[in-house]
């Protein structure tokens, strides 16, 4: 059990350095064991240094920076120990345009080996979807699925209005 965790941590930590530097070009991040002597009980700390800045406590990072660091950690775990599918509900909320683009690039990489189910309000995220579902609640409190579009297949119903640009 200890070795399973030790190996998983090593792989995740290695992925984290790579993923972090792609979300924060010019920055650096790493995962650190709080107690390397105690592989049974140690916790994990996250160190993040955005480009041009000094390492600080995570609480001082901006909203968008925190989102990105959290994404880096999760995606590192996903890459080190893949699962067949992932579900993400509006994770882009705090991101500006440039960072949204970097997130979408990560989604496209994960897609090669896993299924992604992504809830979003962002047009740019919708644009990389292989399948697109619109849900609606026409004033009566009951959800209906209003349309679906599969990439390269003509939809027989009109495409859903993106909920927000």
């Amino acid at each position: 059990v200890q070795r399973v965790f030790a190996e998983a941590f090593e792989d995740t930590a290695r992925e984290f350095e790579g993923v972090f530097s792609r979300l924060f070009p010019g920055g650096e991040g790493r995962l650190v064991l709080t107690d390397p002597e105690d592989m049974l009980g140690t916790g994990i700390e996250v160190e993040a240094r955005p480009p041009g800045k000094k390492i600080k406590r995570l609480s001082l990072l901006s909203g968008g920076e925190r989102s990105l660091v959290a994404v880096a950690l999760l995606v590192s775990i996903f890459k080190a120990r893949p699962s067949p599918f992932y579900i993400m509900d509006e994770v882009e909320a705090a991101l500006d345009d440039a960072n949204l683009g970097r997130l979408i690039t990560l989604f496209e990489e994960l897609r090669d080996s896993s299924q992604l189910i992504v809830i979003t309000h962002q047009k740019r995220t919708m644009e990389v979807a292989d399948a697109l579902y619109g849900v609606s609640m026409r004033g009566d409190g009951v959800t209906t699925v209003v349309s679906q579009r599969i990439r390269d297949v003509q939809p027989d119903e009109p495409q859903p209005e993106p909920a927000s640009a």
Partner: protein
Amino acid sequence: MYVKSLTLKGFKSFASATSMRLEPGITCIVGPNGSGKSNVVDALAWVMGEQGAKSLRGGKMEDVIFAGTPGRPALGRAEVTMTIDNTDGALPIDYTEVTIRRTMFKGGGSEYAINGTSCRLLDVQELLSDSGIGREMHVIVGQGQLDAVLRATPEERRGFIEEAA
């Protein structure tokens, strides 16, 4: 392995039986505020065995049953069926297509079935955990849950990695 389809019946705002066909790759779900997108995420967590009412945003587990609207009476049960394409054998079960179904009745507990055969929650959890989906469901990033990854204690973060490993 990927989720091929998801059918919701009486689950939260999905009063009538609603099926969604999902693709490998990226499936995006879009729609206005309050239309039911996160309810789809809850349905996925629930059919995979989620036991915490709070993780499903309710006060008690029965809160997932369609509670009615001014124009439509409440229902007596909620049912979600998830169909998984298992051609790659990621699920340790001898079928190329695997359905997992969970049903909950008002006042009663939950019933589970794999490929139409009644089973226990534990059977569903064991089937999924062998393919990389653990009980903590680190594969689901709920709305507003990204920051929690950073606010977690070092020990909790260790837990994410152990679950994925």
